[in-house]
């Protein structure tokens, strides 16, 4: 009977997370009949009893106050988070703290790799069992009608001004909000100082243009290492186009301009570094978009356009690296990047809309945002956390260009239009395979415009 974990069983009974039958079986398995008629009898009597609205538990400092609208309601929240988030310490601690504060709310947390979340969210919505809290880009799901509009809950909360303005774009579509931003990142530049020095090339700076950078990268022709780790990711290349002042969507977001001059020029410059000038690596297939990062860490490429998520591994690799913003376009006069990160949203039709929103508020509470930054290198969406970079572990000078670049970054909004996203992705892959950028982008424009509007 000593094997019975009484405190665990008491907790499960108190929270209604165990049925009487399961409790009986666990008592019999662990302690036999003695456990059932002895101390287990009290638990069995308590098990399954309907409880009145229970009291709230303690709320840790820095988290939102108890929401009385959901207190005492028996709710199970289904939460779908990205696989590289859900089991990280800031999140497992968050679940525990939230459940302590709301003892009647049970969290059913599942996970999926980032690329598989869209299918899971859509399938759940189609099957009539929407996910209560999902992790992706909320604006995409707001546009296709799978996310709940939460303007009213934002109004009640009154914290819009606390967020980085750019981060709110990840949850906004057509003027309405569909979720809460969770973290942000963007594309910027890493370079290997030693490899640049080995070919007497000048390292890029915050004012370097694509044209100037290209001249330096060509110095790697015929060398055993490559100048640049190329990626044919749709997201990355939208950022590289934005650096040249190009935008894939029209300003009203109701039409595409995939083959605009700025976009064509950026794609042509980047893709030709590989197949034409032979100073770039061959882009990896879709499932291994992290490969350029591996090659940079292995000192096989001298320059990499990537995000802050690569920095911990680059540091561990021992590369003598520097960072700067993306090139300032072909002529040195434009500034832009693509904003990544993610947001949480409530699945359309969720019966637990308010409780789900409450959980999302907890996820972006300052203590959790600080832990996400320090322990996961996922950067906050709460603006004033940047006032003291040391508090979020951001006082590393290598991060300065990233934070500067973030101000000019915008989300990859074409993702909200699946046909447009596919047309752009295919065109980018074709360009990196040696097709003429103008030709493939003209074809992409035709396909995307037919589905979205041009």
């Amino acid at each position: 009977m000593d094997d019975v974990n009484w405190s665990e069983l008491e907790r499960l009974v108190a929270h209604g997370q165990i049925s009487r039958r399961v409790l009986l079986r666990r008592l019999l398995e662990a302690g036999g009949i003695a456990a059932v008629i002895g101390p287990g009898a009290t638990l069995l009597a308590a098990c399954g009893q309907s409880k009145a609205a229970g009291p709230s538990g303690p709320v840790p400092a820095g988290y939102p106050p108890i929401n009385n609208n959901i207190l005492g309601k028996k709710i199970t929240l289904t939460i779908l988070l990205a696989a590289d988030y859900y089991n990280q310490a800031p999140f497992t601690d968050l679940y525990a703290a939230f459940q302590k504060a709301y003892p009647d709310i049970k969290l059913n947390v599942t996970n999926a790799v980032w690329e598989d979340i869209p299918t899971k969210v859509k399938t759940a919505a189609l099957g009539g069992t929407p996910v209560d809290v999902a992790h992706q880009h909320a604006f995409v799901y707001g546009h296709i009608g799978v996310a709940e509009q939460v303007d009213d809950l934002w109004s009640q909360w009154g914290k819009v001004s606390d967020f980085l303005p750019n981060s709110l774009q990840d949850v906004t579509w057509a003027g309405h909000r569909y979720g809460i931003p969770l973290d942000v990142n963007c594309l910027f530049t890493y370079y290997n100082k030693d490899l640049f020095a080995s070919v007497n090339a000048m390292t890029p700076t915050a004012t370097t243009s694509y044209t100037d950078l290209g001249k330096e990268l060509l110095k790697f022709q015929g060398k055993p290492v490559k100048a640049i780790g190329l990626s044919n990711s749709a997201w990355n290349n939208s950022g590289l186009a934005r650096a040249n002042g190009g935008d894939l969507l029209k300003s009203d977001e109701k039409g595409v301009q995939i083959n605009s001059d700025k976009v064509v020029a950026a794609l042509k410059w980047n893709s030709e570094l590989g197949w034409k000038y032979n100073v770039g690596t061959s882009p990896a297939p879709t499932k291994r978009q992290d490969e350029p990062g591996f090659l940079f860490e292995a000192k096989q490429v001298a320059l990499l356009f990537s995000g802050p998520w690569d920095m911990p591994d680059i540091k561990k690799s021992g590369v003598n690296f520097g960072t700067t913003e993306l090139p300032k376009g072909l002529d040195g006069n434009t500034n832009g990047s693509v904003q990544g990160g993610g947001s949480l949203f409530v699945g359309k039709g969720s019966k637990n809309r308010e409780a789900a929103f409450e959980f999302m508020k907890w996820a972006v509470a300052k203590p959790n945002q600080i832990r996400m930054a320090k322990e996961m290198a996922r950067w906050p969406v709460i603006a004033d956390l940047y006032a003291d970079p040391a508090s979020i572990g951001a006082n590393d000078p290598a991060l300065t260009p990233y934070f500067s670049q973030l101000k000019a970054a915008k989300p990859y909004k074409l993702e909200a239009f699946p046909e447009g996203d596919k047309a752009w992705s295919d065109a980018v892959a074709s360009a990196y395979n040696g097709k003429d950028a103008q030709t493939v982008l003209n074809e992409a424009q035709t396909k995307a415009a037919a589905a979205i509007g041009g």
Partner: protein
Amino acid sequence: MILQHRPALPPAIRRHAGAYLFIGPALVLLVVFNIWPALYTAWLSLQDYGILGSNGFIGLGNYAHVLRDGLFWHSLLVTSIYTIGSAALGLAGALALAALVTRKLPFMGWFRILYFIPSVTSLFVNATIFGWLFDYNLGLFNYWLTSLHLQRAPWLQDPNWALFSVIVVGAWGGVSYNLPIYAAGLQSVNRDLYEAASLDGANGWQRFQSITLPAIAPITRYTVILAIIGSFQLIASIDALTSGGPENATLVTIKYIQLQGFEFLHFGYASAITLFLLAFLLVVTWLQLRSGRE
């Protein structure tokens, strides 16, 4: 008081009630997980059905669209090439190795264990391993090529190479799956026929052509049908290796259905393609069986 008789069950049902009870659970599962979804798919195919539900009945509109959809026909061509390529390589490889394992050679016991491993491993896992082997920058195959002072091959990047690479992965699984079937078939061929042919002066190839191949023809027909059906259900290795790219070079029909359904959210249209594919497969299978009878 007049006693009312309960209506008696028809004798046919009474006679078979026990049998119905036994098959009942399986029948329920069949209806719930196969027949009902198939009927639902047929219903969906007649609708303009998106993520938020039906936008209305459109009759055969989706089917008419399938006929005009160049990408669908392209996906069918890709699938057919994949089917022929992976079936030919997979079945030939299986037959060759089956001939080997039915001989008394050293270490055959170990080999019999090893050859079935790809079949019991998840298709996605197999394909993911091949994905690394095929990797342009870091893969083992290109490492070997460069060690031999040859150019690296763009196994998965180039549209001309990608389908071939996917076929190799399919054939790898096909060899493993079909090998024991062929091994059993080869062992059932009457040894006297070989002896008689040898006495008549037939060489090894002649014996294989005139005795072995006709004897295992029913098995080959069966494995070919399975290979065709399996090929038309292919998606795991495509997802792991290429996601249908580059430039739709490996866009097989099931991947295209997934694209239309779960990425573009055209569920009605995806359902129509599914039923179109079903009809196509029925015809191919019927032709295959018919040719066997002849």
